[in-house]
């Protein structure tokens, strides 16, 4: 208990401590280090991840599409140690498009037909039958007729006068995904002792959670917006913090997690993810001067004039601009005295004023 109390107290900060600036300095110093030396991780098979400064910028900029989305999927106890069953699930996960199942195709734009040469080996590798493929195609594309002759599938576009339409339709057909979870490009089975787990590139939380045998509570994704849409803002906040901590961890640039947590909090306290920059955290500052000092000076002043904004001069930047004491640190405290108490300090008799 004493240790815990000590730890707890050591984590406290003084009243008026400019934690934001200290956070910015801590993160900033470490990220300049990262520009100079970036550790390149030896890739686990196809597991390409963006790490280092680019990944940090990606998170902090709140980019909707992460360059390399990754998920780690774990399974129920009975399945996790069974390689065959994990492999089965892997097949369910990976996106399979028509393109990967065919050897080639022959287009006849004049007749509006396309001949697809299906590859038997590829189909069995993904455990898909030709019948299923044809079912999927005819149900998803109402404008085409599907017929087959062995492994040759003929696709006939009904409105064959429209050559442009024929072409686009055929491209869509070839790109059509016939099995797997949408957005999941590649799955790799890894092991952790005796248990197996699957690492996939691409992210689709909802789709993966629905698969039988997957433990929904043990899925991890590094796509922050996915976390936001599935689990909500609190989870997204944790995801941001963990991802940033992970970036620094790889680079062996450790720092107090509180700094990272503060950054994640600033990005998410409004209920949505705000980027750090003029479109997010810095752009939403209360003070006109603080915003104008950062970027797009003229725009902010003109808008402030337009809408008759008032600057309460409560932040740091605006007070430095006008030349007042700043409102953090030693400038946070003010000396006050009650009027009636003043009586006590009246000069005593005989003492000069």
């Amino acid at each position: 208990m004493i240790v815990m109390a000590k730890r707890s107290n050591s984590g406290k900060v003084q009243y008026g401590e400019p934690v934001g600036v200290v956070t910015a300095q801590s993160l900033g110093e470490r990220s300049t280090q990262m520009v100079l030396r970036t550790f390149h991780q030896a890739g686990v098979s196809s597991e390409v991840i963006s790490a280092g400064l680019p990944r940090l910028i990606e998170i902090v900029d709140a980019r909707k599409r992460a360059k390399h989305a990754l998920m780690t999927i774990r399974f129920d106890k009975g399945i996790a140690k069974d390689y065959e069953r994990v492999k089965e699930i892997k097949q369910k996960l990976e996106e399979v498009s028509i393109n990967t199942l065919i050897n080639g195709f022959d287009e006849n734009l004049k007749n509006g037909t396309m001949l697809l040469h299906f590859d038997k080996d590829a189909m069995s590798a993904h455990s898909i039958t030709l019948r299923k493929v044809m079912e999927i195609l005819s149900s998803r594309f109402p404008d085409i007729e599907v017929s087959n002759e062995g492994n040759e599938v003929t696709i006939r576009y009904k409105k064959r006068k429209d050559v442009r339409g024929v072409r686009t339709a055929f491209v869509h057909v070839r790109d059509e995904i016939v099995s797997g979870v949408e957005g999941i490009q590649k799955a790799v089975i890894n092991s952790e002792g005796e248990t197996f787990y699957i690492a996939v590139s691409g992210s689709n939380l909802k789709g993966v959670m629905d698969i039988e045998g997957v433990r929904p509570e043990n899925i991890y994704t590094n796509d922050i917006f996915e976390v936001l849409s599935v689990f909500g803002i609190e989870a997204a906040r944790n995801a941001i913090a963990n991802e940033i901590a992970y970036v620094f961890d790889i680079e062996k640039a450790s720092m107090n997690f509180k700094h990272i947590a503060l950054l994640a909090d600033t990005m998410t306290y409004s209920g949505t993810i705000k980027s750090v920059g003029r479109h997010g955290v810095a752009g939403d500052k209360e003070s006109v001067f603080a915003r104008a000092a950062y970027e797009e000076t003229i725009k902010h002043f003109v808008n402030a004039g337009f809408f008759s904004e008032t600057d309460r001069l409560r932040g740091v930047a605006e007070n430095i601009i006008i030349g007042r004491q700043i409102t953090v640190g030693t400038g946070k405290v003010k000396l006050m005295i009650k009027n009636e108490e003043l009586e006590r300090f009246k000069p005593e008799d005989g003492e000069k004023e």
Partner: protein
Amino acid sequence: MGKESALCTIFVDGKNIGRVSDGAAFATEIRANRRKGLLSGEINVAFIKELNEVHINADKGRVRKPYIVVENGKSKLDDQLMEKVRSKEIDFNYLVRRGIIEYLDAEEEENIYAAMRENEINSKTTHLEVDPAIMFGVTVNGSVFPEFNSVGKHPLAWQLMKQAQALPVMNFSNRFGARSFLLHYPQAPLIDSVTYRAANLSKHANGQNLIVAVTTYHGYNMSDAVVVNRASIERGIGRSSFFKTYADEERRYPGGQQDRFTIPSPTVEGYEGEQAYTKLGEDGIVEEEMEVNEGDIVIGKVSPPRFLEEQTAFGAGIDKSRDNSVKLKAGESGVVDNVMVTETSGATKIVKVVVRSEMFPEHGDKMGSRHAQKGVIGSIIPQEEMPFTSSGIVPDLLLNPMGLPNRMTAGHILEMLGAKATCVNGIIGDGTPFARKGNDLIKEYGDVLERSGYDRYGNEMLYDGRTGRRLKSEIFIGPVYYFRLSQMTKLKLQVRSRGPVQILTRQPTEGKPRSGGIRFEEMQRDALVGHGASILLKDRMLDQSDKDSVWICRECGDTGYMDRVKNVPVCPMCGGTSKLESVEISYAFKLLLDELKSMHILARINLKSD
């Protein structure tokens, strides 16, 4: 294809001109004809086996290097010819004309098999290097024993040599370069190299042979600093002149007006008082050998007014010209060395004034050797307090031994040893790259030293100048060729507590010539914010910078001004006089408010009493 591909393509200066059946024989024939003198020696030919192409180059811009031709396993430059060369009967160009030495370009070099030395020639050898040192250029060969130094140190060493103050030209007194240095007592190095001999560099020496002891001195030469003997400086070590040229011209302006070199008359705008122009001669240019200090005017110049005058009732008779004289900037001083008056090609009169100042080595001046061993002077110690040898030699410079091992500049140590041997036997040592083997050199120098009663590795017993006690360990001591580098305290030192401010923002100026301060910028600001040091931050950003008090109207929030006639503050917006308060703000902020007003944005300031 088939048959055609067996033919070898010929390119002349990159243009395909035809084919031959045997490219190698073709190239050999051209070479033979070139050596006979039938073809120009500037032609180079290369047979490229992989492509089956012959490239003949005769264009400009190729870097070429001379080689001695070897035929039948024998150098064509035989003893007989060498004897003629020695007796100056024939010269290098004769050998080139006769095809004994030929210049090869980068492409032809790919076809040869060159021996580095004559005894390495075998039956396959086609060429012989003129000298191993020729693999380097002039600058590399300018350093001594470079093969004993770390590769990465070489560029740094040449960089240093470029910065050395020297005797660069003999007509320095007639020169008007912007900045130049002149070393007063240059010495020829005790160890030289091919470049020194070939380019006669010893006549244009850029350094001095200093007696260097590799030892510490009470911490004054830590972190690459050096300790220098005061008496050595007084004897002239590193003493130099610094020449700076101040130039100006009589510019012509549209409308027929032009500048004039003259002593400005008191009616001129910006006249600085009679006292300021006393050093100028009748022509408005400073007299030669006049002592000038910072702020002194060296060229008096009057320029026409910036804006065209309005016609007054008195006519255009009033002289509105302004003083546009050339002054010495902050921290500059010296003696006027030379004055030149001439004209440009556009018949504009120009004046150049050279001011010379003497530079004695002082704390913070940079010194360096030919082995990228550079350092600033950490302390100047009186001769009595320097260590001395048993024979009474006092070193000029104390070099910290910590600078040597991790930089791997063994050449520096070898130079000390060699130069010490030179001092003993009077023969200038040779530091040409790859001329000798290191062990041979050490043995040779050691023998010379030992014969004269010195330690063969250059170590000596030293005595502490302060106490007279013998130092506990032997100390490596010997002469090193040292440069005085152009980085000098006198040209860089600048401090400021109060000083000039910028006109626009009223913030302190920046940079040495304007005696400016050191900028306190955003990141520095963040550091103070991070510490919560609010008063210190305000001190930096306001009190010590552009503090100003501005009248602000309580009613409308606009800035007012002080009516000096009635002695009351006035608000121009609401015309009131009593509701204004004096508020201390940054002048830059006031400027911002004014600029916003120019954009039709009025920022009202609501005052609140604390």
